[in-house]
C-alpha cells in the first residue's frame, strides 16, 4: 500500500457489492467527490494470505438521513425533535482488478484514496507505452491518453462531441494537438512522435478567424490560468502539471481562400502573413475534383455515372497540357460573350508573358470555372444539336449515352456550384502567380497548417475539405512519410449519417484506412448521432464535452456509464469526459486556458525588453 494512500471508508454491507461496482461508506470527516480514485484490497475468501486489489473511480456520491421513514422526518431531525444518522456513501465503478479474480469486495473492506503508484495503476498508466498528457484530473494530477491509440499503433482517431460554444471542442482538439507535438515521454523524455520533423497537422478553421492566431502568445493566459491555480490552490498551472511548455504553436502556416482579382490576396481581415489558396483549372481536371463541386452524388444513378465519365474525360483532356488553363480543340465552340470578354481581357495581359504568348493559339481556351461549365454544356448538350428528340446533341464520346434530362441536370448543378467555387478554381492568372496559391501540406516545411474556410459557402467548404483531404490521402497512398493529424469540426456536415457524398467517402477512407496510412482524424461534431456511424465508430478515443440532455441519451454515448452521461449535460466549458479503449471508465479532464491566442484581442503584441534590445542592436 502506498504511503500516501489515505483510508476513506469501508465497503457498504447494505448494498450489493459486485466485482464491477460497489458502494462504500465514507468515513467521518472525509470528503469524497465524483471522479476520486480509490483502491480496495479484498482478501481471497479461499486463502487469506492472498488478496485481490480493486481500483475504481467514484461515479456517484450521496448523503441521506438513515433511520427516518418519511420525507417530513427530515424537518423533525433538523428541529432536533428526532435523532437520525447522516450517511455518506460513494459508488465506485471498478476500473481494474488485480489479479483478475472477479470476486465481490466484502462488506467492511477498507477503502483507500489512490495516490502515486496506485493512481497510475487505476488509470492504467503503467500499461501505456507512450502516455499523452490530455489534461488535469480532478485531484490535480495529469490525466493521460494512451498515445498508441492515437498514433495508429493500436488504434487511431479522436472524436469529440458537444454543444457548440459550451463544449469547447475545438479548443480541446487544439490542446491535444499541442500536446502531441510538445509532450515528452514520461520515462525517456523524448517526443512521442515517430518522425517529429515530418509530422503535420491540418486544421480547418470553420468559425471566425479564431484559429489564425495559433502562433501568437495569448496575453490573457497568465491571468486566466492564475485564476484557476488560485481557485485550486495549486502551485503549478495546467501546462506545468501536464509537463508541457507554455507557449503558442510553432511552425504554423496559415491559409485562406484567395480573393478575386489578379494579385492573389488571401481573404482575411484580422491577420497578416496568411497565404492564399486556390486550384488551377488544370489541377481541377487532372486531380479529378469534379465530384467535389457537386454536393450530393448518388453513385447508382445515371447522374453519378455521367459525373464519373466526364471526370475521366476532363482528366484525359488535361493530361497533355501544362495549365493552369485548359485548351480545347473545338471548331464551332465559342465562349459566351461575357465569358469571352473576360477571357480576352485576361488574354491580353497574358500576352506579356512570352511563354504563354508562344503557346497562345486560336484554340478556345478555358480560363475560368464558368468557361469550363460552358464547355461542358457544349459537349454534353449543344454540339450538333438539331433535332428535338432529346437524345441527340452533345458529343457522343462525352455524353455516355445518358438521357438529355440527366445531362441537363448535370449542367444545372454545375452552374449552381459555379458561383461558390469560381474564386477557388481559376486558370486566368499566370502559372507562377497561381503556383503561390497551391496548398501542398505534406511537402511544406511548416508543421501546423490552418486552412480557413469559415467565409466560404457550405458547398465551397465541402469542396476545399474534400479536395485537400483527398490530396493528403493520395500523397500518403503514394508513400509519403510522416503522420498527418487532421482537425475537422462539423463532421455531421461532411460525413452525415444519412446520404452519400464524395467527401464522406474520403472521410470514411480516412476513418477506416487512415490508421495504417498515418492519417489521424481529430473530428468533432455537435451530435455524434448525426454523423456516419463508421466515422465515429472508428475513433479509438471518444471525448464528450457538454451535451444536450436528449443527445446524451442516444446509443452513441453508451460508452459512458449512466452517471457520466448525466454529468455530460452539466459540464462546464473546459471540462471534458475522455474515454479510451484500454481504460474501462472514462476520465473527467480539465484542460488549460489556451497559451496561444484564439482571437485578435488575445494576440500578445507587447515586446519584451530583451526583444526590443535585439531589434535595436
Amino acid at each position, binding site marked *: 500500500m502506498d504511503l500516501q494512500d489515505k483510508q476513506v471508508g469501508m465497503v457498504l454491507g447494505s448494498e450489493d457489492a459486485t466485482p464491477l461496482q460497489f458502494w462504500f461508506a465514507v468515513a467521518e470527516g472525509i470528503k469524497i467527490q465524483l471522479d476520486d480514485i480509490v483502491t480496495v484490497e479484498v482478501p481471497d475468501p479461499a486463502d487469506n494470505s492472498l488478496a485481490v486489489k480493486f481500483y475504481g473511480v467514484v461515479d456517484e456520491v450521496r448523503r441521506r438521513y438513515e433511520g427516518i*421513514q*418519511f420525507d*417530513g*422526518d427530515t424537518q423533525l*431531525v433538523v*428541529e432536533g*425533535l*428526532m*435523532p437520525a444518522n447522516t450517511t455518506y456513501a460513494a459508488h465506485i465503478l471498478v476500473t481494474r482488478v488485480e489479479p483478475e479474480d472477479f470476486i465481490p469486495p466484502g462488506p467492511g473492506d477498507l477503502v483507500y484514496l489512490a495516490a502515486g503508484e496506485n493512481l497510475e495503476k487505476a488509470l492504467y498508466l503503467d500499461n501505456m507505452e507512450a502516455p499523452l498528457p490530455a489534461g488535469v484530473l480532478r485531484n490535480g494530477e495529469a490525466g493521460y491518453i494512451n498515445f498508441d491509440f492515437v498514433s495508429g499503433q493500436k488504434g487511431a482517431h479522436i472524436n469529440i462531441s458537444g454543444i457548440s460554444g459550451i463544449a469547447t471542442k475545438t479548443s480541446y482538439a487544439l490542446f491535444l494537438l499541442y500536446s502531441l507535438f510538445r509532450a515528452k515521454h514520461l520515462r525517456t523524455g523524448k517526443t512521442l512522435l515517430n518522425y517529429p520533423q515530418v509530422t503535420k497537422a491540418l486544421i480547418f478553421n470553420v468559425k471566425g478567424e479564431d484559429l489564425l492566431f495559433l502562433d501568437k502568445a495569448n496575453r490573457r493566459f497568465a491571468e486566466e490560468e492564475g485564476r484557476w491555480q488560485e481557485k485550486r490552490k495549486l502551485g503549478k498551472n495546467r501546462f506545468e502539471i501536464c509537463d508541457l511548455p507554455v507557449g503558442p504553436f510553432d511552425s504554423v502556416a496559415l491559409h485562406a481562400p484567395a480573393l478575386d482579382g489578379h494579385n492573389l490576396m488571401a481573404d482575411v481581415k484580422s491577420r497578416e502573413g496568411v497565404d492564399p489558396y486556390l486550384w488551377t483549372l488544370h489541377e481541377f481536371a487532372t486531380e479529378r475534383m469534379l465530384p467535389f463541386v457537386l454536393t450530393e452524388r448518388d453513385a447508382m444513378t445515371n447522374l453519378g455515372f455521367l459525373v464519373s465519365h466526364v471526370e475521366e474525360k476532363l482528366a484525359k483532356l488535361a493530361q497533355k497540357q501544362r495549365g493552369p488553363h485548359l485548351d480545347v480543340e473545338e471548331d464551332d465552340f465559342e465562349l459566351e460573350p461575357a465569358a469571352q470578354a473576360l477571357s480576352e481581357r485576361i488574354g491580353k495581359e497574358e500576352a506579356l508573358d512570352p511563354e504563354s504568348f508562344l503557346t497562345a493559339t486560336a484554340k478556345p481556351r478555358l480560363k475560368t470555372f464558368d468557361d469550363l461549365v460552358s464547355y461542358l454544356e457544349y459537349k454534353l448538350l449543344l454540339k450538333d444539336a438539331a433535332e428535338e428528340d432529346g437524345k441527340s446533341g452533345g458529343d457522343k464520346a462525352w455524353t455516355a449515352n445518358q438521357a438529355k434530362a440527366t445531362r441537363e441536370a448535370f449542367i444545372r448543378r454545375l452552374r449552381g456550384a459555379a458561383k461558390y467555387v469560381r474564386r477557388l478554381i481559376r486558370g486566368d492568372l499566370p502559372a507562377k502567380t497561381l503556383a503561390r496559391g497551391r496548398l501542398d501540406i505534406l511537402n511544406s516545411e511548416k508543421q501546423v497548417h490552418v486552412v480557413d474556410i469559415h467565409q466560404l459557402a457550405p458547398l465551397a467548404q465541402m469542396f476545399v475539405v474534400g479536395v485537400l483531404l483527398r490530396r493528403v490521402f493520395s500523397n500518403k497512398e503514394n508513400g509519403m512519410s510522416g503522420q498527418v493529424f487532421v482537425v475537422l469540426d462539423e463532421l455531421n456536415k461532411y460525413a452525415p449519417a444519412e446520404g452519400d457524398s464524395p467527401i464522406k467517402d474520403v472521410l470514411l477512407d480516412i476513418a477506416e484506412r487512415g490508421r495504417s496510412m498515418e492519417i489521424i482524424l481529430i473530428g468533432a461534431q455537435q451530435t455524434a448521432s448525426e454523423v456516419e456511424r463508421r466515422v465515429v465508430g472508428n475513433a479509438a478515443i471518444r471525448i464528450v464535452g457538454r451535451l444536450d440532455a436528449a443527445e446524451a441519451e442516444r446509443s452513441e454515448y453508451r460508452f459512458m456509464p449512466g452517471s457520466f452521461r448525466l454529468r455530460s449535460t452539466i459540464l462546464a466549458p473546459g471540462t471534458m469526459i475522455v474515454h479510451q479503449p484500454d481504460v474501462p471508465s472514462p476520465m473527467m479532464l480539465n484542460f488549460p486556458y489556451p497559451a496561444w491566442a484564439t482571437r485578435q484581442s488575445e494576440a500578445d503584441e507587447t515586446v519584451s525588453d530583451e526583444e526590443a534590445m535585439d531589434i535595436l542592436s
Partner: protein
Amino acid sequence: MRYALWKMYLRLDPWATEYNTAYHAEDVSNEAKANVDAYFERAAADWQAIKPQTPNSNWNELIFLDGSRRVEARVLLEDDKRQAAFGALGSYGVGAVSCCPERSRPARVLMADNLLVTERICALGSGQQLDNFSVKTQLASQLGEFHYRVISTAERDAEAVVRRLQTEMREAEKHLASRLLNLYPEALIICDGPRPYLGSEVNVIGYVKTIHEPRLGQRELDVVRRLNQGERSPIYLVKNSKKEQQYFEWFFRLRDPNPWLYSLAGMVRLQAYAGSEPESRLKEVQQLADWLAGQLPRFASRQHQDPRAPQQLLPIRALEAELSRRMGHPQIVRRRLTQFLSEQGG
C-alpha cells in the same frame, strides 16, 4: 341538537388495531379510588382544566428513555418423559435520546458510556434453570454471536415467560435511568411507561401512553375528557402504604382530538415523584407540569408517522427503531436459533 342527550355516537380510536387501545377502562375498586387524593392541587370546586402560561425554561436537556423487547422463539424445556416448563428466547434493548428544549442542538441517541444496551434472554417458567449459553456457528459468513442469559420465573403458564422478559427490560430501564441521573444531573429524564421507583429525584418523569383504571370520579373525568391541546388536569396524588412509593399524576392532552375520535384520544398520564412529604414537593411538580405542557406537544407524532400517534413521541419512535435494529433481524435470529437447536441434537 335536541336529541343530543339521548343520542349515542360511534367514535374512532385512532391507534392501529394491532396495538390494542390506549384506553383500558376497567372497573376500579373503591379501594383503589380511595388511594387517590384527587384534590391535592385543586379543591373539588376548582377542579378545572389548567392552561399553563409559558414558564421560563428550567431544563436545558430533555432525555427520553425507552425499552423495547421481543420474543424471537418460544421454547419448551423437556426431556424424553415430560415437558418441564415453558420458555422464551428473546431480546430486549434500552436506550435514551437527548433533545434540546431550545432546539439549538440536534437530537441524538446516547451511545457513549454503554448507554445503549441490548441483551438476549432465555426466560424459563416453573422455576427451571439452565446455564447461560452462546449461539455461534463455524461459518465465516455468519457474523455475530448470540449470548443468552437464562432467567427464571416460578409461574407456570405460557405467558409468564414473556412477562418475565418484560420485567427484565423494566429493570434495565430503571438501571439506565439511574445511570442517566448520575451522568446528566441537569437533564429532565422522561421514561416511557410508569415512573420507575428510583428514589426522590424530581427530574425523572413517567410518561404513560395507556390509560388504565381511571381512578378519578366521574366529574373529574368529564373535565379530563374536555381538555384541549396543551392543557393539563390538576395534579392528584396516588397514595401508597409505602410512603416512599407515592407519586403525583396528571392528565395531559397532547393534541386536540378530532370530533370523530373518542374523547380520551391523544391523552397521556404523567407521573412524578411525591414521596412521603408530597406537600413540600407540590410547587416544584406544578412548575414541571406547566413546563412540560409547553414542550411535549412538539414531540408528539402525527397519524401518518406512527400507528400510536400522537402518544408515541418522535424521539421514542426513532429510538425504538434503533433498538430493534440493534437486536438484529428477527428472522435471521430465528433461523440461527433453529440451526443451533438442531445441532444440539436430542
